[in-house]
């Protein structure tokens, strides 16, 4: 599990996706799966959203959902 506060601003590789099947299929719909490279962008705290860039597409995911995505920093 990630603490979104620790992984702000940088480039990451997704190593695991936890949570319910609906969440996994939801991410797959956006072409996000284990192995996808993501960039975490500026995401103000008040919004309770994590803004990520996947393949030149900026996507915002709720903080509580993002906790289900495990990733490691690559840059």
């Amino acid at each position, binding site marked *: 599990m990630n603490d979104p506060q620790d992984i702000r601003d940088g480039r990451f590789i997704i190593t695991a996706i936890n949570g319910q099947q609906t969440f996994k299929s939801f991410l797959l719909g956006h072409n996000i799966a284990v192995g996808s490279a993501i960039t975490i962008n500026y995401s103000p705290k008040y919004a309770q959203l994590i803004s990520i860039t996947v393949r030149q597409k*900026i996507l915002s995911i709720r903080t509580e959902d993002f906790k289900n995505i495990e990733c490691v920093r690559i840059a």
Partner: protein
Amino acid sequence: MRTDSLNKILLVGKPNAGKTSLFNQLTGLNQKVGNYSGVTIEVLKGKLGSSEIIDIPGLQSLNTSSPEEVISKKEIIKAASMQQTIVFVANAMQLFDSLHLFSQIADLQTPTIFAINFIDEANKNKLTIDKEGLEKKIGCPVAFINSRKGEGIQELKKIIQNTKTSIPNTICRSNYDVIDQGHINNTYITNLENALDIADWEDDYTRRQKVLLPIMNAYVVSGKSDTYLLNTYKWDKILLHPIWGMLIFFATLYMVFQSVFYFSSFPMDWIDSGFASLSELARNTISIDWLQNLVANAIIPGLSGVLIFIPQIAILFFLISVLEQIGYLSRISFISDAFLKKFGLSGHSVIPLVSSWACAIPAIMSTRIIENPKERLTAILTLPLMTCSARLPVYVILIAVLFPANSGAFFGVQGLFLLALYLLGVIATLVLAWLINKYSKVESNSNWALELPIFRKPNWKNIFLTVFNKTKTFVFQAGKIIFIVGLILWFLANWSPKSEAFLAQKQKESPSQTMEAVKLEYSYLGYTGKSIEPLIKPLGYDWKIGIALVASFAAREVFVGTLSSIYSIENNDEKTIVNKLRNETDRNGNKMYDWATALSLLLFYVFSMQCMSTLAIVKKETGEWKYVAFQFIYMLVLAYGSAFITYQILS
């Protein structure tokens, strides 16, 4: 390569890939375009020569199942089963993202053209695509286009019309081959129709990834594409900032409403006085009494009641369209998600909510972009509380009656009061959303994501055409109803069950009343109004307002036109509707439209559901009459209750 030639062309792609812009370029039509996902919410059709072009809502994958994606999926599978041509539209800068969906389309084995859009942005970011190489690899024609500026459209038209389109090479279709009694049956389409389970979908995704990655590496060379999003990142740091972002958000909202009042005041005055002069002209030139009466007191005031609001509605649509096209509406979704979540809504509800300021009907249809069924139902049931353009005429007239004009100043009390009424609509929507969400037993799911588009310059031509079309729709839709209601009211107002002698006697008994006023009071219309007076008297309304209320139950914009007709029949001395209302008195000679009555009326219109078309669309979208009945009743109770309390406190 197999070839085929067909007449129906389906535009398919990810959300916000520019499909509707391409549709407009190909067909010469002007459907709404925006800079966010989910602008297209239903199937659009147009002609290109002998071909029919069909634009469908964007979809992420053929495996997903949100309501608008299901519409698209069904259309795509239907088209493939009939071997119709698909034009697959991809954003050049998000090509790899689109290739996944393309690969699923390719496996349907129907004639396909791969149109790579926003090629200008690719060139700007030095992204090189080997067109010929890609064509050979995927097995179908590739076209470079810029749907916003029309570049590459002629070439695409030639591919569609003059050459035979090709069926692309399959990507993963063979994975779905099943050997049955010695025969190979392919189950790909059956699997799509039934939706894959997650393990199969992950497997499918991985296999496609293995085929697509080498294609990307071989035919797409990324130059400085990392700079593509730099400007957007920079702007987002300001526009999403907890302090600056909020200040910009509220300032934008405030400027929109001030602009609606400030820039429309002069043209509205011209239209108002122009129609007053036209009525005067009709009185002086038409010699046949009944015809003069009909034209001067029914037709012209009725038309004036619609046309006077063109400037305000056009300005509101213009500003909303600009915010949509530059990409700011999606930032409002981002800013407001955490706040809206507390009320059972989300950032996805922002676009339906803002659209409701124009009209609740497209707003309710646009709730299809909300994947959570509970949130979608909550939004549908509460959106009509937002201030639609049909309420604007009622607000504008009553605010003008209560407050003197701005005297040329941009910031004025009229604009502030209008903003307060809009905010009241928003507050009511949120409170009701919270209540409905709390007590609703509809199933909920929490997966949520918001795509933030890059900031783009607005397409002015499209904005002006959108404003023109929306204003035209308002004028003709509202105009038709207002015109018919106006004619019915005129007949009812000019016929009386009483004799001429009775009317003359009544006028003698109360000499302060004109003969026209006496005739109106004892007409069929007067009797109708008086029959409902006991019900509306506690709200501060007389029988004339009652007539306008009843007449506007089908469509609230009828209210002003009806009042305009009634007061024109009764009193020709005052030229403009605002002056007529300002000088209107009750039986005791007191001002009719004082603070108590005007505020009570305003609140009635803030909350009441007076739009048959909205109720019809709620039925269509929810599929159940119980929601229609619930919505109509709770809004009526809210309207009556708030008007009653306001009048009783202030009077």
